[in-house]
């Protein structure tokens, strides 16, 4: 039986608001999921649906109000700080905003190699830099000049996101959490990145892929969970979520997503205006 990498059991998170008059909001309500090795899960939801908070709870960056998370078999709330660090070293995390995810003063290659140097020390520096260079090449950043330019000046939004992905993959994580990793890419590079990630998943890496695009979810993961205002409103294989959505919100998501194929059937454009959905 392949071992479970991650279990989340009834995880809830409450943000008290600074202003006493207004009560706080529940970012997450009773989210449960199980992720086995080599499996990938898509989290589908809009901004404010709690997807980013869930990733941060899983990594132990914030404490959940109730429920617990087991990472590689250890409960992150009760384990020691040192073992939590060890757990995190087996995970990779690609944050949503590409601008805050990279140290601006380092060069691109340093930024990618840095996690390896922190974990394995400077003596394995050559190893780190060759791994970093290889990763950057696979993600389409090949120009030598770019590798040594400072992150702050040399990179476009799309390149910066790919460097962040490389930085998360350098430690050969057994669990990769990525929050809309292809939001800044255009169509062609988007599928390339997903192929790179899928290849890693086939080699045994588990992945949680956050997106608002159901088609992207199907391409990146076999299983999907739809989040609405912190609650899981539907969970199924990504194929059935697309073809036979149950929950009203999932239906609206599918209807709202423009596709080329639906656009070219003559009638689709006329009935576009009728199936209104108000959340």
């Amino acid at each position: 039986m392949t071992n479970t990498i991650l279990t989340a059991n009834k995880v809830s998170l409450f943000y008290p608001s600074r202003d006493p008059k207004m009560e706080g909001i529940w970012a997450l309500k009773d989210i449960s999921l199980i992720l086995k090795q080599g499996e990938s899960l898509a989290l589908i939801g809009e901004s404010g649906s709690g997807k980013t908070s869930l990733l941060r709870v899983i990594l132990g960056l914030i404490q959940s109000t109730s429920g617990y998370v087991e990472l590689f078999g250890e409960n992150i709330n009760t384990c020691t700080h040192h073992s939590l660090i060890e757990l995190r070293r087996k995970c990779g995390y690609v944050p949503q905003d590409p601008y805050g995810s990279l140290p601006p003063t380092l060069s691109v290659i340093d930024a990618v190699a840095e996690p390896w140097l922190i974990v394995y020390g400077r003596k394995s520096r050559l190893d780190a830099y060759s791994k970093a260079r290889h990763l950057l090449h696979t993600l389409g950043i090949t120009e030598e000049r770019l590798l040594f330019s400072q992150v702050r000046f040399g990179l476009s939004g799309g390149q910066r996101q790919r460097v962040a992905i490389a930085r998360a993959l350098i430690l050969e994580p057994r669990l990769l959490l990525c929050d809309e990793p292809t939001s800044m890419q255009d169509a062609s590079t988007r599928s390339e990145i997903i192929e790179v990630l899928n290849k890693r998943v086939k080699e045994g890496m588990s992945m949680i892929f956050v997106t608002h695009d159901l088609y992207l979810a199907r391409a990146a993961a076999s299983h999907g969970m739809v989040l609405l205002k912190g609650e899981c409103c539907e969970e199924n294989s990504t194929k059935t979520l697309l073809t036979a959505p149950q929950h009203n919100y999932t239906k609206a998501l599918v209807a709202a997503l423009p596709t080329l194929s639906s656009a070219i059937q003559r009638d689709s454009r006329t009935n576009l205006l009728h199936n209104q959905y108000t959340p």
Partner: protein
Amino acid sequence: MMSLFRRWSFLLLLFIAVLSILAPFSLSVSPNQEVAPPFSTPLWLKRNLPPTMKITLSENILKKNIAWPYNPPTQIHLSGEITLSVPSALVLETPTQKFVLHHLTVGKNTFDIDGRDLSFKQRLNFSPFAQIPSELFSEKGEYIFRVEPDFSAPPEMRGTITFDIKGGRWGLLGTDQRGRDIFSLFIAGIRVSLIVGISATLLASLLGLFFGLISGYAGGWTDTIIMRGVDILLSIPILPILMVLAAYWGKGLWQLVLILSLFSWMGTARTVRAMTLSLRDSSYIEGLRGLGAPTFYILWRHLLPETLPLLLANIALGVPGAILAEAGISFLGLSDPRIISWGRMLHEAHSFGAFTRGAWWMLLPPGLGITLLCLIFLDLGKFLEEQIDPQLKGALKQ
């Protein structure tokens, strides 16, 4: 870094610093010494006034010619300690007359005659109300001052005779109300402005860094208290407080530095706090901490390289403020009178009536000195700010 060394402000600062260090050794006249009558004008001004000069006769020089194209001097003074082989007389030959100033006997003679002594006036049979200097130096032309033997044999003389003529002009920048040489005062003033300016700002920046980091990192209660304190200190007039403290506590240089820094750290504290807040929440720092990177590593590898340029720019821009504050307090006469500073010079110029004499050469040097130092540090600050974000460079140029 190299481009900094080619910057005009850096080179000028270096030159001024070296000048102020070498000053005590190189200057012929010490700043506190009274060298000429008060309010004498600089040499290159009012050429008709005679410069203050000192004519000496000694063993082998018994005669000195003085070219005198000027108006008469204000005061004269004769002093000497000599031994003579032959009785002779101290003589001043004017183009038309000849005056015997003093009779010298054989052997040891010591004398100290001032132009206003009555006995001296009678010996030269002038009226007691006569002005000796304008009588003696009434015409323009060639004067000779010599020791003339009573009989023909040339005398041998040991020791020196000095003939002080107090005129209206002196040195490069004239003299102040106490007759001290303004140029050497000006050079000595550099030291105070530089020391106070730089050390007060450094101390203030350290305080700012300390409070900024704490309120940035700690957040919550400490943050609100510190920031409320900063708001309050920024909303009250600081000079009156400095005046009171300086008047009663801070007579010395270092007390003044302490007081100045106590009330100028708020700006840096705010910038450092903003910087720490933005860095603390950025996800890559969180990620590094998550991977177990030691805090020292994070501080050294990430926080410092990012905050340093901003901090340096902050310091460079803070120095003019400190220099002006010190100058202000000394101008108000609240600083230690023994310490020579540009502010003090301006204070004395103002309160001892540089105006009634129109002595603009007393005002310009210290004032322009302060301005120059401030401009230098402003330029250095601008240069450092341009290192932080290059578009700033563009913004000023276009």
